[in-house]
């Protein structure tokens, strides 16, 4: 039996920690709740900072090294804050052969960032996804949570620049 320590208190009195705590408690604060807890923290805060990683690890009895290992293994988790807007370009096969490469190149040129980076003014984060499953709409992007299909590079660049 692993030794159970006293439940650590949240890093701050930010109410969003309650959401994370609840999600962990629902799974009995057990180590297998780690990925669910990281999802909850990222949903609440937008990214995972050291406070979040430590808090989740301490609550579930998972060493910090393992928490960091898991958080960096899965590409869905991000340890850096995101920009005000996010643009996810799908790089799935259908999008690839329908011009995702050109869209990405166009965005990199106009925004001056590479995927997984945020523009210097903190406005736009550029991300890529393996496949959004929106293959019939290829090429597809997600701008601020909205899936958009049959995208043309010029239109998208114009839209993002206007943000």
């Amino acid at each position, binding site marked *: 039996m692993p030794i159970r320590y006293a439940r650590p208190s949240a890093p701050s009195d930010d109410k969003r920690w309650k959401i994370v705590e609840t999600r962990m408690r629902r799974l009995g604060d*057990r*180590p*297998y*709740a*780690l*990925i*669910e807890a*990281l*999802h909850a923290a990222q949903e609440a805060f937008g990214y995972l900072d050291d406070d979040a990683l430590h808090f989740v690890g301490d609550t*579930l009895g*998972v060493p910090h090294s*393992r928490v960091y*290992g*898991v958080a960096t*293994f*899965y*590409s*869905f*988790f991000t340890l850096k804050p995101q920009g005000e807007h996010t643009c996810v370009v799908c*790089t*799935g*096969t*259908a999008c*690839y*052969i*329908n011009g995702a490469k050109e869209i990405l190149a166009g965005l990199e040129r106009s925004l001056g960032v590479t995927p997984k980076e945020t523009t210097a003014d903190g406005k736009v984060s550029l991300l890529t*996804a*393996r*496949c*959004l*499953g*929106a*293959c*019939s*709409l*290829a090429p597809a992007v997600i701008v601020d949570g*909205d*899936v*958009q*299909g049959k995208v043309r590079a010029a239109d998208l660049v114009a839209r993002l620049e206007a943000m």
Partner: protein
Amino acid sequence: MSDMPAAARPVRRRVITEEIAEEPPRATAYVCEAASCLSLQSHDITVRLGEVVADAGLGDVEIKRVGCLGLCAAGPLVEIAETGRLFEKVTPDAVGPVVAALADVKQTDVRAPQGPFFEKQLRVATENFGRVDPESLDDYVERGGFEALRRVLSDMTSTEVREEVTRSGLRGRGGAGFPTGLKWTTVAKAQGTQKYVICNADEGDPGAFMDRSVLESDPYRVLEGMTIAAFAVHATEGYIYCRAEYPLAVARLRSAIRQAQRAGYLGSGIMDTSFAFDVQIRLGAGAFVCGEETALIASIEGRRGTPRPRPPYPAVSGLFECPTLINNVETFASVPTILRKGPDWYAAIGVGKSKGTKVFALAGRVVNTGLVEVPMGMTLREIIFDIGGGIIDGRPFKAVQTGGPSGGCIPADHLDTPVTYESLVELGSFMGSGGMIVMDDTSCMVDVAKYFMDFCRDESCGKCTPCRVGTTQMWMLLDRITTGRATGGDLAQLEHLAAIVQRTSLCGLGQGAPNPVFSTLRYFRDEYLAHIEERRCPAGVCTIEQPAEVMA
């Protein structure tokens, strides 16, 4: 563990209130609210249609949200249920023709044939697509939902259920095609009091969206299939491991689980029997390798999703080291229909060892992109040209890619091959989960091979060396070829390395990673040679650095 009694014992339980028989509507409009049409604002169309119909005083008309209507290329789609008339590319501001068609529907109307895209399909796992409201349990039940589960729980032993599934010839729809009945039997016979059922909804193959569509369009069917499986293998707990990239599918699943629990289709005492089974959702986090069953289990356990050597197979020692049944979404979705219509009905569909139907996601340079379900044994030509409508702009067909990053590219010479698990392997490809990406002459096959290798080297979990190092080295060789820096020896090196990675990798990701290279080399070797010897890309995709003496 001994077999369960003939019928799980009935226990006292509140009776689910019977529906009050309502006058059926005279006309119904089905509005597709699956992800593809929804991203084109189809929900606004549902709302707008409701308003316009009310304003027009059409009291006997129903506007209904449904799952995927299939022809995603022409979305947003609205279908008139009674006549089968399909409205394509509808906008909220122009619903007039739909309303006029609704007003015209007569009692005597029969559904007209809808053209080859629909008529050549045979729907089993997707039979409710575009028919039921994915967020309404009542609607699912009205269309025969949970009938199979009722039959299983009241009239059958778990052995009989397994025998029927075995007799149907159903094989795993996630890719490898392992006989489902055999897998269920292995789990049922495994030692252990706690057993689990896992639904693999980590559809990572780029270009595949069958599972997403099933979960978005008919989530109850998956729950019913899982519950039947749980009864057959004596499991009491289930997990659905779904990609986080599919928010709509997750939301609809959550709603379906909640409603099913409330109505007594999940939880303890299912359908007034002593059988208990419950389902939880676990979200993936963007790791392709988690589609591999042992990696998926590691991920549910909250660890890095790395595979482990098998045996022991999950059927013997899986989640939390208990016997675990893992099937794909589409496999579970096929089960209720098989048990309702009978295993012999299902086994009569298909050819050879590939029975039943398969759902394919048509994408790429094909006119009718979307979701189709066809009997096994249909030829690639029928799927791509009759159902798919051929190539966009009438360009020449070059290849179809099946099986995702572990699959291969099949050229035009083999378009008349019937699609079965075996025939695709013979052609150097793979059934995979069912993505079909059609390519025309604007695709360079070496570039496609490089694309998949880039995918694999990025998604390799790093646990075993052949995959971690091999995929990177192969990508570097392919990069040399596509940029015109390769020598003759590089091709031999690539083939040699591919064979090693295929033989020595730990899991399917590494073992399958060389397949796109093998298959493109087999059918498009001339393109490789053009890049290496002539320093040109026949499709004009690759940017080739010309040697200095040519530049001068």
